[in-house]
Structures are given as structure tokens and as C-alpha cells.
């Protein structure tokens, strides 16, 4: 079947707009489309953290939002919370907190996490309640749809969709093959 179907490519290249961990000069870029309320993404988060440790400066990691809000009622607002924290320079801290508390993503919880991070709460709540980052979330989502993201999590390794597993070992194998 792989003969019939070429693996889809990332249609929106990684750029200034993205949340990035790791050096821009890294030989391998891993892009994840994920949903904070999706249990599979929670499992993948742990794998990604392991992989980042092992790969060090050889890896650049990018996270984009793909909330399936009709199945996961808190996913969209959690993504807004991550972006609202990002607007205050704290995207990744919030990202880790959200995956650490996947079963506590109500608005009160989200405000609690912002408080723990010492964010400007008024600005944060205004952003989340006012959907200040809706355009970006839509761009993330549609870029995923156009790149062959059919569910979460979906990974791209150097711009090509990774169709294998997302345990740390499988990801490492795919990433190392690019070195």
C-alpha cells in the first residue's frame, strides 16, 4: 500500500509563527499535531520528552494544535490557554502543565495553572475568554488537515508524515534515520 500512497508532507513549513524547542540548526525537526485532552497525546508527550533528552541539540521539536473539540470538550480551551500563556512567553511551561493534568482542564483549572506560572491573570483570562488566539488555532488545525493529519497525535519527521508508532523507541528510530 505504501507504493500506492506517498506519505503526506507538511504543507505549512516550520517558521517564526511556531512554538519551537531546540536549535533551528538541528538536523532533524519533529512536528507534532496534538490535543491536550487526547489520552494518546498524553502518552506521546512522555515519549517526546524522552526523545528530546536523548537527541539533545540534534532535535528541533514543534507543537501545533489539533483539538478534536467535538470529542474532547476541554481541548479547544486548553489550546487557547497554551496560546494565552505563549503570549506572555510561557507557552512550553503551560504545555507541560496541561499534559500533566489532562483530566483537569476546566476554566478554573486553567486559571490555576496560569497563577502557578505567575502570569498576568487578567490578560490571560481576557485572552482565553475572548478567543484572542482563534485565528492561530484555526491556522494550526487547517494546516494539519491539508497535511494529512487525520487524528491525534500525528507526527512529521523533517516534513514527512510519520506513520509508525509514537513510543520513544519508534520515534527515535525514525529521527535517527534522518541523521
Amino acid at each position: 500500500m505504501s507504493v500506492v500512497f506517498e506519505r503526506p508532507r507538511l504543507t505549512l513549513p516550520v517558521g517564526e509563527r511556531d512554538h519551537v524547542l531546540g536549535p533551528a540548526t538541528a538536523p532533524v525537526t519533529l512536528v507534532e499535531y496534538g490535543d491536550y485532552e487526547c489520552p494518546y497525546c498524553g502518552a506521546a508527550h512522555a515519549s517526546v520528552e524522552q526523545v528530546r533528552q536523548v537527541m539533545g541539540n540534534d532535535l528541533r521539536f514543534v507543537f501545533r494544535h489539533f483539538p478534536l473539540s467535538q470529542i474532547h470538550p476541554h481541548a479547544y480551551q486548553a489550546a487557547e490557554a497554551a496560546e494565552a500563556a505563549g503570549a506572555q512567553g510561557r507557552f512550553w511551561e503551560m504545555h507541560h502543565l496541561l499534559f500533566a493534568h489532562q483530566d483537569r482542564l476546566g476554566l478554573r483549572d486553567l486559571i490555576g495553572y496560569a497563577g502557578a506560572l505567575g502570569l498576568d491573570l487578567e490578560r490571560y483570562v481576557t485572552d482565553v475568554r475572548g478567543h484572542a488566539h482563534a485565528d492561530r488555532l484555526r491556522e494550526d488545525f487547517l494546516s494539519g488537515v491539508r497535511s494529512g493529519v487525520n487524528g491525534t497525535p500525528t507526527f512529521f519527521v523533517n516534513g514527512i508524515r510519520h506513520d509508525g508508532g509514537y513510543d520513544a523507541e519508534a520515534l527515535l528510530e525514525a529521527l535517527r534515520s534522518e541523521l
Partner: protein
Amino acid sequence: MSDRSHERNDALPAGTLAPAFELRSAPDELVRLGDFSGRRLVIAFYPADWSPVCTDQMALYNEILPEFQRLGAALVGISIDHAWCHVAFAQSRNLHFPLLADFQPKGEVAQAYGVYDDEIGMSERALFTIDEEGVIRWSFVSPIGVNPGADGILASLESMPAAQVPA
């Protein structure tokens, strides 16, 4: 996993008039192709409610529904499941588009569109976009275990001439 569909693709091609249908979306609700006349329609034939790939595919389309609507298109899913089964499946997945029961005679509409698999007794995983005049503009058959995603549907809708918007 079979990719027979690629060896034998009888799906009605672009340019064909879409065969009419009248199917139940609920035990007391009929949906006809004619209901969509003057609008664009996306039809997603799929093998069965509840199966893992179908569930992902329908959940994805459910999320993308506003984008289909922005491009002037409605969406229906069609499988050989009974209307009662569709109702339960749609409720459990919070689906906001109708699932139509190609149940009696079984698979008749899938046959008409050239996407019924006699061996498994279910429709193939097939997509059609239909324009305002009821003409098929794009069709695609995916291997049964592969979620075709929505890129092809969006590309087809975007390539259609702009809808005549009433003044």
C-alpha cells in the same frame, strides 16, 4: 488489509450525474439527494459505524464541518448500518451531520455509486463531491483500512467555480 479497491475502482467518475437516493438518517427521517439541490454536497461512504478507522474519519469530518460549510457544502455519511445504529453512533460521537442508512435494499446506493464491495457486504471507503447541479466533481476510493482525511475534499471544493451567490 486489502487494497483491492485500487485494482478495481468502479466509483462513478467526475462529470457523472449523481444518482438520486432517498435514505433514512433516523427511523422517522428521510434524506434525499434532491434536498441538497442548489448546494454542494460531500458524500462519505464508509464501511461501518463503530469501526476504529470510520470513527476517526467521521470525528475528523465533524471538526472540519464549518470549513465544508464555508465552501458551500453540506456533508452526509452513508453506510449499510440501520438508522437506529446511526442514531446511537452519531450521539456517542456528537456528530453534527446526517448518517444515512443504506440498509434496505442493502447497499443499493453504494452500488449505484460504484462503491459497494460484494465480498465484504459493505461499501468501500469512498468520497464524492457533488456540485450545485448534482454533478459529481471528484471521487476517490481509499483502501478500506486507510483514513483518506479531508485534504482531497477541500481541494475539490476549492477548485469548483465560485458558487452563484444570490444578490
